[in-house]
């Protein structure tokens, strides 16, 4: 048995998604008043279309893929936390942490930590400049929104 090519794998995943989507579409309740087209028709059509497209993708020959260049030896030599995919994962985790801490800790501190911390992690070593830029941007945005436009942003543990 030959290995599946990338389009075939993607086709299978998308087909599965389409099936899940359709399963939900069939659970959309009927509207009690007569409607020429009820809420469930479009989702059903979309679900079947996606399934059909997944089949076509399965049959399509993959063209040259847009995958990043093979990871060079120097990248591989880096510690685990600095390798390319680790960078994506850690950045994502930082965003999750930011989202969860935004309200309790407050807008200014979390944004500052995210901006400063990520720039550091991405390899920026001039911490003074980093801190000044991050603080400047965050404070400017915060004041513009809260004072200038009267939009409420979470204060958190800071007094302003």
């Amino acid at each position: 048995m030959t290995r599946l090519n990338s389009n075939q794998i993607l086709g299978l995943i998308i087909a599965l998604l389409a099936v899940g989507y359709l399963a939900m579409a069939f659970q959309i309740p009927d509207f009690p008043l007569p409607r020429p087209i009820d809420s469930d028709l479009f989702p059903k059509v979309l679900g079947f279309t996606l399934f059909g497209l997944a089949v076509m993708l399965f049959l399509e020959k993959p063209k040259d893929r847009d995958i990043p260049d093979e990871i060079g030896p120097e990248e591989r030599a880096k510690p685990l936390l600095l390798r390319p995919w680790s960078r994506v994962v850690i950045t994502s985790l930082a965003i999750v942490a930011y989202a969860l801490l935004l309200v309790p800790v407050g807008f200014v501190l979390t944004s500052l930590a995210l901006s400063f911390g990520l720039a550091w992690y991405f390899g920026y070593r001039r911490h003074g400049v980093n801190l000044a830029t991050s603080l400047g941007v965050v404070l400017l945005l915060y004041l513009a929104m809260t004072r200038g436009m009267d939009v409420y942003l979470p204060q958190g543990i800071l007094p302003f």
Partner: protein
Amino acid sequence: MDAFNNLMYGFGIALEPTNIAYVFIGVFAGTIIGMLPGLGPISALALMIPVTFAMEPSSGLILMAGVYYGAIFGGSTSSILLNAPGVAGTVATAFDGYPMARKGLAGKALAIAAYASFIGGTISVVFLMLVAPVLGRVAVSFGPAEYFALMVLGLTAVVTLSDKSLVKGLIAAVVGVMISIMGIDLQTGTERYTFGTTHLLDGIDFLVVALGVFALAEVFYMLLRGGGGKEQPRNAIGSLRLSRSEIKEIAGPVGRSSVLGFFVGVLPGAGATVASFLGYSMEKRIAKDGDTFGKGNIKGLAAPETANNAACTGSFVPLLILGVPGSGTTAVLLGALLVMGVSPGPMMLEQRPDVFWGVIASMYIGNIMLLVLNLPLIPLIAKILDMPRPLLLSLILIFCMIGVYGTSFSVFDLLLLLGFGLLGLGMRLFGFPAAPLILALILGNIMEESMRRALQISGGDWSIFIDKPISLALLIIAVLSLCLPLVKKVILQARQTRG
């Protein structure tokens, strides 16, 4: 010479020193609001209403209109430099603007955007002045059936926007429609795909998806490719000058998109975003080098930038002539006018000519100010790209997060943003185009709603779509625009096999 006299009268109002100051403040604030992702013109205007309470109505509208078209003008900057659309209307600007910036042509891209915005804005003001009173009828002639047909026509652009693989483009488009219909279905009040959470009742905000699959995905992509601190410094700005041949090249797209953008803007509910997409796909379709669109083609930048500014002006037609808002932003403007004691509508031209002509004249001045204000700033703003890469990436992230939180005030949306960032990265790695997804996201929901609304009115009779001449014409154009490229392909293939 009636229009001329009216215009002179308008300039008399717009050129009063205080009003000139308001135009300036408006376009300046608008540019800044537009540049910052998430700070859309809607919230900015809503929050300005109390300020305009005490103002002369013409001054108030001059100020607020300035913020509105200034924001569309400024929104292109972050689209081009950061791939992070500042406002919804400038998403299509990123398609070719950002690749240009990546090639070291940021200065030129920003200059083209500024000129295109200026010309689009100015040509459409001329239209507004000359034909606005007649256009009220055109705006109301679009009912649900006509909107459905227009959306179908818009969606056919998916074919032109997906060049690598049609199947992948179509998949992206279907997913886009799927996202657009999430939330409460307006036609029945039924929940669809909300997964039991109140956060999804209103569906997913367009900006969350756009910032995710463009800006955040781009950050991730750079991280993957080893976008650490070592990227070689490059001349990020480049020259601002356009060559004669480049001017010639974009003259056509700018002219066509001005007209298209204005008329799309006149239609209530369509607006700058739809106009910019239609402008982009129209130019891509008729261009000889259509396959270089999306890779930094200057026509692909000029067309949507012209169209969105023209549409912004066009959207003042339903507002001022009919007194009905065509978009969220003009709804806020309408509210502000009512508060100031002016009720826009058919009688406004007679009752408050000062407001009508004053605003029109102020738009000429505002557009010139925007150009003069923005051109010298380009080298300065484009310096952003000279920033060390790690710092720039972290700032783009912060901008996206603040942009999303500032419009929805929802932590849930921040997590969604991350989800769409990862989706965008995956799409990029496996060759799925993002533009069809965004296009379908904008048009899909309006298409479904208009179709069902039309059928609700006709009692389920499908002939409503072909009985109405405008709807029929649009549908025929849609079918033709789908068939022509296919026919072309078939003929080419036949020739090749023969040869």
